[in-house]
């Protein structure tokens, strides 16, 4: 009975508004009478904000004024300001460099950087990216198709070939190569400060809940239809692969992102490298969600040399669907939005907002790390020692079922008993002990904790993806 009640509660988004103290959302005025669905977003070293819209235009915001830089593009869903100041934009059929050759502040050269994949005119065949690693290679991801009668499908999404469901690389010499496969709707890609590439994928067939992965060469990420382009596989052979075989072939995500509670359709991972301008969450990953109109954080951990980690909601009640996130040089978090075709909690069809911090130190979970016996949770402010007690916390665990079904409910949802809790000397961290099992998501609720000023957190649940225990 308890497990039934838990599973019903499990799929609910937080009903309350959550935001850390000191943070607020500012709505940015966009050009009048322009369909400003922001699906590509970047900023340059001068603080100019660059936007690509689903309508097919590129605009920039400089000193409070919007100007149109390029137009006529095919539903771009990614934009990057390159080191030389030129703009790279990911159109459906092409990764394109936009250059202003005559210095009139408008692009006049539209040069293909890569178009080696196939685009079959299917609406779902988006191109996401690009991002650049520290060696100068560009990376992007290619969405599978939907409702394409010519595509090979084993559920909902399909591939008619041409590297659909792949990540790709374009090296410094402009050479294109397929890089990894098994992707579904990989709507967000990002480069970490050290140059590692991560991507998110959206919940659906063969993706039991949304997730974020480390992108690695020649790896398989779980959606089987792109295997048709891999040597040794045929459609028949792929269809006959057992779930266990496919699961064993698949990379584990760095984090699972619980459906509805945190995200349905996550966008790009964006690293906070603002050197404190955005408050205490330095070095952490921020991701917007298109459906929930929220922003959540990813807290990376490294266990046995591999990434895993946790997700935690950050702010909700944005005006539209959050698909793009970008920190500018002033430490503001810009959020690009669209809700066309895929609805969002925020009622507006499109827009641009930004999150700013006023210097107030909030009281929230700062970080979580796995220990041999449980977790160390670190907060942004000193904890009230009186609140550090066992009944201030609770925990549960579950896993997801990998299959061709559209998403998975929580499986084997189990209450975990927290057996010990210890406050650190600096009063900002607690160590908790609880039973640990690999390949589980562990949710820890800490609503009962208070800081020394009597504040409670605005977000009281963290979800840790426990791929591995510490060896």
């Amino acid at each position: 009975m308890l497990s039934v009640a838990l599973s019903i509660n499990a799929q609910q988004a937080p009903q309350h508004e959550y935001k850390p103290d000191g943070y607020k959302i500012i709505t940015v005025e966009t050009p009048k009478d322009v369909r400003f669905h922001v699906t590509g977003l970047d900023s340059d070293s001068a603080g100019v904000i660059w936007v690509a819209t689903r309508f097919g235009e590129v605009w920039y915001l400089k000193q409070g004024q919007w100007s149109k830089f390029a137009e006529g593009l095919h539903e771009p869903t990614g934009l990057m300001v390159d080191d030389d100041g030129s703009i790279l934009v990911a159109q459906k059929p092409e990764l394109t460099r936009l250059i202003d050759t005559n210095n009139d502040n408008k692009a006049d050269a539209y040069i293909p950087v890569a178009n080696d994949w196939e685009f079959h005119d299917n609406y779902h065949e988006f191109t996401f990216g690009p991002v650049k690693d520290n060696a100068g290679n560009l990376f992007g991801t290619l969405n599978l198709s939907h409702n394409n009668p010519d595509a090979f499908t084993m559920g909902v999404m399909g591939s008619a070939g041409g590297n659909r469901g792949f990540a790709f690389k374009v090296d410094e010499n402009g050479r294109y190569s397929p890089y990894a496969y098994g992707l579904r709707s990989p709507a967000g890609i990002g480069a970490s400060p050290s140059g590692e590439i991560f991507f998110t994928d959206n919940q659906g067939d063969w993706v039991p809940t949304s997730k974020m992965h480390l992108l690695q060469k020649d790896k398989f990420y779980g959606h089987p239809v792109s295997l048709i382009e891999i040597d040794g596989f045929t459609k028949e052979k792929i269809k006959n692969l057992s779930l266990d075989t496919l699961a064993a072939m698949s990379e584990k995500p760095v984090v699972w992102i619980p459906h509805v509670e945190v995200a349905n359709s996550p966008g790009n991972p964006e690293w906070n490298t603002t050197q404190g301008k955005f408050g205490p969450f330095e070095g952490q990953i921020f991701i917007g969600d298109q459906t929930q109109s929220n922003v959540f954080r990813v807290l990376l951990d490294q266990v046995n040399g591999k990434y895993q980690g946790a997700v935690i909601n950050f702010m909700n009640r944005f005006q539209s669907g959050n698909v793009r996130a970008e920190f500018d040089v002033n430490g503001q978090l810009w959020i690009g939005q669209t809700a066309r075709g895929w609805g969002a909690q925020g009622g507006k069809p499109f827009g641009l907002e930004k999150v700013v911090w006023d210097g107030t130190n909030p009281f929230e979970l700062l970080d979580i790390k796995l220990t041999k016996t449980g977790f160390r949770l670190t907060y942004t402010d000193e904890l009230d020692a009186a609140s550090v007690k066992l009944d201030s916390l609770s925990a549960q665990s579950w896993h997801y079922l990998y299959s061709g079904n559209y998403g998975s409910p929580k499986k084997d949802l189990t209450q975990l008993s927290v057996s010990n809790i210890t406050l650190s000397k600096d009063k900002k961290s607690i160590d908790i002990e609880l039973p640990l099992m690999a390949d589980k998501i562990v949710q820890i609720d800490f609503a009962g904790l208070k800081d020394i000023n009597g504040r409670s957190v605005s977000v009281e649940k963290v979800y840790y993806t426990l791929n591995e225990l510490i060896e």
Partner: protein
Amino acid sequence: MIKRFFIVALMLFTAVEVNSEELDETLIQSSTNPVVLQQGKVLFEQVCASCHNKDLSGASGFNLKDGEWVHGKRPSEILNNVKNGFMSAGMPGFADVFSEQQLRSIVSYVLSKREGWDDLQYKLYQLDNEHDQVVREDKLIKSGQLAKNLADFAIPEVQDYFIEFEGDFYAPKDKDAQLWLEWGAPHEMEVFINGKQVQRGGTPWFPTWRLKRGKQRLKLTYRSGNSKPGQRNLTVIATNLDMTIKLFAVSSRAKVIMDGKKFEIKATSDTIVLRKRIHKLPPLSISVGMPTKLNYAFNSKTCSINGLWQGDLLNIGPNISGRGEDPSLPLGEWVFKSPQGIKHATDAQQVCSYKGYQLVNSNPVFNYAIGDTNFSVTAIAKHSNKISFLFNSNNENKTATLRLPASENLIWSSENGKITADKAVITTNSKGSFELTASIEK
């Protein structure tokens, strides 16, 4: 012979009616008369299309094809409104501009373009529970006429129900069409045409029902069953058979969606380059619209000119509304389209390499390479009947062969070589350039 038929037709048409019912009948009769319709079409496109759009779908003026008639739907009322206008709404009266016969031809033309429901009625029955399938008169709780002539699936306010919509229905006369239900898998919708049930086709999630051409009696029924209450406001749209064009709304919810499927892009002062999915053109076709009302497409995969059409550029609405699953529609008449095109005759193994385009005073110059030869192509159209494609290459005084689209309406010419039925054998000049000009005959 044609002229005589025309005179007879017009004589019939100007006979004096004693009352508005007779006038209604006369106008309905003439809405199937091709001579009258041709005259009405010409006049409509000259004077009415600027506000109501060439395809009657509405712009600053109302949509004249659908079932919603704000000022009266009877043919005699429409004629009266065309004569007297609504100056406060910006529509002049045309009584002093055209003859009675000309005005009637316009109304007949409008009537001939009618699509969707007319005289649409509904009946709502309350059922006992989600399993109840017995529809009896004593369960009828609501009925009436739907003034907007759209099946309104949001009418029921009870949990379990059966609703039926019935009325006259106008499908296209000149092409096959079907009803399409979006996300239809959980829904018990049934369709009856002229009293006979139509088989449900299409796919489970996107079922379809074939329509007859022209006017028919249509009934839709829907039982709520165990479908989710939030999903019962159904989207029903008339589409072409390959589903590439959504023609018009059949339900209220569909109307909202269809209104978003119109976003016309027209080159007025500058040339426009636009990359979208385009109906009847393959992927990777880049469209170019010129203010002289000529448009072409360059395909970046085949490095060919694979489409040419007169009129305006594109209605991109279908490609930018909802999820953008439908292609943009050219706003004019094709001169040629893929697989026809202007293409280099090359070895089968030789692939072209697209190098992008450069805008020169808004006009795109497309760059590509075939083997070791770099090419560029751009177009100049001084008016809507003539277009010149200017090619440039890094090969001076060399011979090249280009395949040309075969069309009786096209006359090709070039000062750089010889044109035969379907190809041009040209020699580049000392600067590596050559030109191909197409004159479009009416």
